[in-house]
């Protein structure tokens, strides 16, 4: 552990943020070190060791760094600090609290404490003296933004412990003693509300990880209705630039049924992060009535921040997610964008002069991505409760080409695919999720199908499949119309096409900037889908093909107005009535 005899070294070479250090003692792969630049200490991580030379990636700019500078190794990996007070914080990729930093510009080597050490928390013990506990077990809890924040046996603790003493209920800082635990050999250890965990290693302090078995509601129709993601599931959103990846991600993080939302802004635009900073404190969580920011933590490693920290940022976010999952909470983790993370890996691999894989990405890219996605999931804790991390990552495929390495690697790991389509985005059909190409593997899980049936009625899955079929047939009909001309196909083709347009306009398209349409709860999704499918079942008679489009445009318009209106409002029922009479008129 952190002994007195730290390994030290001296800088021997510098190429951008890759620094070669000559060391005088043992060093570990991925060990953290500090380079003692006269201006400030620079944090770095060992990524390769050749003899006495440790190759370290520096999380900061190396400008002005000189050969011969002293380096001190810390004896541990990059760690997150876990404890109450993480929610509504804005961290950088290394979990520095951005709000604690002084000045407008980021100063290099400015490392700030992720937790507040002064604030007192209302502690309630859960265990009793004599209880036997192990890593991840709940010792007590403190309320954090209205959420029960469990104080756990540190994840690093190995084996069984007996509770020797437990602090009585009261008000304490994070560093105060919470319990004294005795290990199997009779040694006593004191715990506080704080623990540390190496970010690149998965937290496994739970009993088992079952297959995901229930759906996770996001409030986005094109996802929930057509291709639902499971609680504890994984999904990814690839899309060329300008197809609305970030807007969709923000929409999901606003309205999804999560207790905790962790957003890793990984190598993306700073203004997008500012949008979250600005909006989330204003927006209400539709489920709890509290502000959205209270359940949210943001890891902001924007594209202009150092590249190596970008790689760390997704791991930091995942570790925070695992921490809250072990408290029995539902965590939603969003990473925007995993491509930037992969590019950070590429930059380092390049500086290390490794033999490159496809598009100069490192050869182990697929393995790195899949072991990261594997950290998501729903788990049963030691006490039988469950917690989950649902993970959705975006991918920014180079040139919009889905055959590039990052998209292909991710496709092998993520179970839901929400492909954003350029043509849909061009014609402002948002969200631009392609209804034909996208999929959710969870629709093939019998346990998910069953839970959907319980929640939404037995006919639900049938309706979903029917909807997909109408969309597919509509696309085929449109291709025929384009080849043969409006007159060259039977009227039936026009009806098929317009049925799919109806679903597109009313179900798939959703206005995330409209106060009401932005969030569509599941019962409302069910209502609208049934309403629309009912129309597609009707046997309307049309004289000529132009009548089809005219009629369908009119009813689409009315149904859209319904999407914009409060459910159960007069406005909604007026439109509903209008719709019914228009349909009946056409049937007679």
């Amino acid at each position, binding site marked *: 552990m952190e002994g007195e005899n730290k390994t030290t070294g001296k800088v*021997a*070479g*510098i*190429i951008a943020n890759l620094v070669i250090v000559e060391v005088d003692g043992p060093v570990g792969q991925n060990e953290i070190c500090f380079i003692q630049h006269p201006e400030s200490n620079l944090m770095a991580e060992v990524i390769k060791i050749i003899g006495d030379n440790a190759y370290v990636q520096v999380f900061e700019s190396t*400008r002005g*760094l*000189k*050969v*011969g500078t002293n380096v001190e190794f810390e004896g541990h990996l990059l760690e997150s600090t876990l404890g109450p007070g993480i929610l509504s914080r*804005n961290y950088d990729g290394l979990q520095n609290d*951005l*709000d604690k*930093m002084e*000045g*407008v*510009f*980021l100063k*290099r080597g400015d490392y700030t404490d992720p937790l507040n050490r002064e604030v007192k928390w209302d502690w309630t013990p859960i265990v009793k003296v004599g209880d036997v506990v192990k890593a991840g077990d709940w010792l007590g809890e403190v309320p954090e933004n209205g959420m029960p924040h469990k104080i756990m046996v540190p994840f690093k603790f190995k084996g069984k412990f007996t509770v020797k003493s437990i602090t009585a209920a009261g008000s304490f800082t994070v560093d105060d003693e919470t319990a004294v635990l005795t290990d199997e050999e009779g040694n006593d250890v004191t715990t506080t509300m704080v623990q540390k965990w190496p970010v690149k290693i998965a937290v496994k302090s739970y009993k088992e990880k079952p297959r995901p078995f229930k759906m996770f509601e996001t409030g986005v129709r094109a996802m929930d209705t057509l291709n639902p993601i499971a609680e504890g599931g994984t999904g990814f959103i690839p899309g060329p*630039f*300008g197809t609305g990846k970030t807007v969709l991600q923000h929409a999901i993080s606003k309205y999804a049924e999560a207790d905790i939302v962790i957003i890793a802004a990984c*190598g993306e*635009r*700073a*203004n997008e*992060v500012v*949008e979250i900073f*600005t909006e989330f404190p204003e927006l209400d969580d539709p489920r709890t009535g509290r502000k959205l920011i209270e359940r949210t933590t943001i890891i902001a490693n*924007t*594209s*202009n*921040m150092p*590249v190596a920290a970008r790689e760390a940022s997704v791991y930091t976010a995942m570790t925070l997610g695992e921490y809250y999952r072990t408290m029995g909470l539902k965590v939603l983790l969003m990473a925007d*964008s995993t491509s*930037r993370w992969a*590019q*950070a890996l*590429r*930059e380092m691999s*390049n500086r290390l*002069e490794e033999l*490159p894989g496809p*598009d*100069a990405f490192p050869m182990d890219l697929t393995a790195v991505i899949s072991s990261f996605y594997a950290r998501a999931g729903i788990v049963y804790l030691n006490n039988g409760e469950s917690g989950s991390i649902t993970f959705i990552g975006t991918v*920014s495929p*180079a*040139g*919009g080409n889905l055959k590039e390495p990052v998209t292909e690697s991710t496709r092998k790991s993520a179970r839901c695919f929400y492909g954003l389509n350029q043509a849909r985005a*061009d*014609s*402002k059909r948002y969200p631009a999720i392609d209804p034909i190409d996208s999929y959710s593997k969870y629709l093939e899980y019998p346990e998910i199908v069953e839970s959907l049936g319980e929640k939404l009625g037995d006919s639900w899955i049938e309706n979903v499949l029917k909807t997909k079929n109408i969309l597919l047939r509509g696309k085929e009909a449109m291709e025929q119309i*384009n080849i043969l*001309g*409006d007159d060259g196909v039977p009227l039936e083709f026009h009806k098929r096409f317009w049925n799919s347009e109806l679903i597109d306009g009313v179900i798939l398209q959703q206005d995330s900037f409209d106060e009401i349409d932005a969030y569509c709860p599941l019962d409302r999704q069910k209502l609208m889908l049934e309403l629309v499918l009912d129309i597609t079942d009707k046997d309307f008679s049309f004289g000529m093909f*132009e009548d089809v*489009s*005219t009629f369908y*445009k*009119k009813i689409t*318009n009315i149904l*859209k107005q319904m999407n914009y209106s409060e459910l159960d409002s007069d406005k909604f029922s007026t439109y509903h009535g209008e719709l019914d009479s228009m349909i009946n008129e056409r049937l007679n």
Partner: protein
Amino acid sequence: METLAFQKIYTKIKNITKATITIEADNIGYDEMALVDGRMAQVVKISKSEVVLQVFAGTEGISTNAEVVFLGNPPQLKVGEQLAGRFFNAFGDPIDGGPNVEGRTVEIGGPSVNPVRRKQPSQLIATGIAGIDLNNSLVTGQKIPFFADPDQPYNQVMANVALRAEADKIILGGMGLSNDDYLYFKNLFTNAGALDRIISFVNTTEDPPVERLLIPDMSLTSAEYFAVEKNEKVLVLLTDMTLFADALSIVSNRMDQIPSKDSMPGSLYSDLARIYEKAVQFPEGGSITIIAVTTLNGGDITHAIPDNTGYITEGQLFLRNDSDIGKVIVDPFRSLSRLKQLVIGKQTREDHPQVMNAAIRLYADAANAKTKQDNGFDLTDYDERTLEFAREYSLQILAIDINIDTEKMLDVTWGLFSKFFEREEVVVRQEFVDKYWVKN
């Protein structure tokens, strides 16, 4: 930059490549500047006592006994009010025959703004060009490029935008600018009486290409001075970023780096992001807005340069020659301003977002009708109407020679809706239709 008397002079160069020299030297800082035979150079690699220097102007004619002097600092610029109205080269030295600038010395390419110290951009930049203001409204603190083919009038449009934008300072970063274009900007700014608001850092096609790499940092460092210290609204014009990226690939190639897509360095995304992310709105009122130009090769936006740019910038503006009306228009399909949501319908009229979307949807319908027409199919009455609408819309809204205010743009668009369509065909919120539909 003058050398100081006590500095050590090295005269034993070990290796020389096309762009770099290697020399034995101690106590040298990474990124430090040096003079190699009087040419500016920068430290790009240090290995023990071996220092590799990138010589900006190239190494032609440098001999192994040439004098190398280290300047002890990274690239710097003197900032102050005196920058206004002046023209500089990539090293920040005057090229207009004027005196050296007096001021504080700052390192260029400095640290990033802490994201929590930024303010959300919220101030509309009105340009009068409807293809921009109506469909792709710009906001202070935004970064947006023109994606244009080399034959399109991007520099003219950009200059127009700059002059109408009511910025306190306009900073021109010219990379690989032809001498003609340089003079075009110079004359335009002079004639507009705007010279005292303009600062230019120019690398023309006559200068060594690698020097271009310093232009964006020079421009943005001076922008930061005016935006942070003077709370000014600064507009930075960077043209042409494709030539900047080409210079990056030259350097990475000469440093034996493994190229990724399109022979570009693997770090292209980070290199471009570092520049574009300098665009910022400060809470105190100062702002840096970046309008750039990325020239395309035959309209190919999947090339690594426009592709990476698109992921970094907050949208992009496409110019297209519309043969139906014989004018250059701002393409409504491929253009996008990501920050427009922050201002449209808020600083502009309430119906702006819906009108914008409805018009583009109808314009898309027209494009489909045109495909049908081109394939020899009969057009429906609706198709005919969309085509007529599209033509008028191009002429009265999208063309780059339009100069009207947003209110007028909305009224014109409602006028076109009413002229060619039925109310339910435009799919706009009912209350707006009731309010703005032009009754014939």
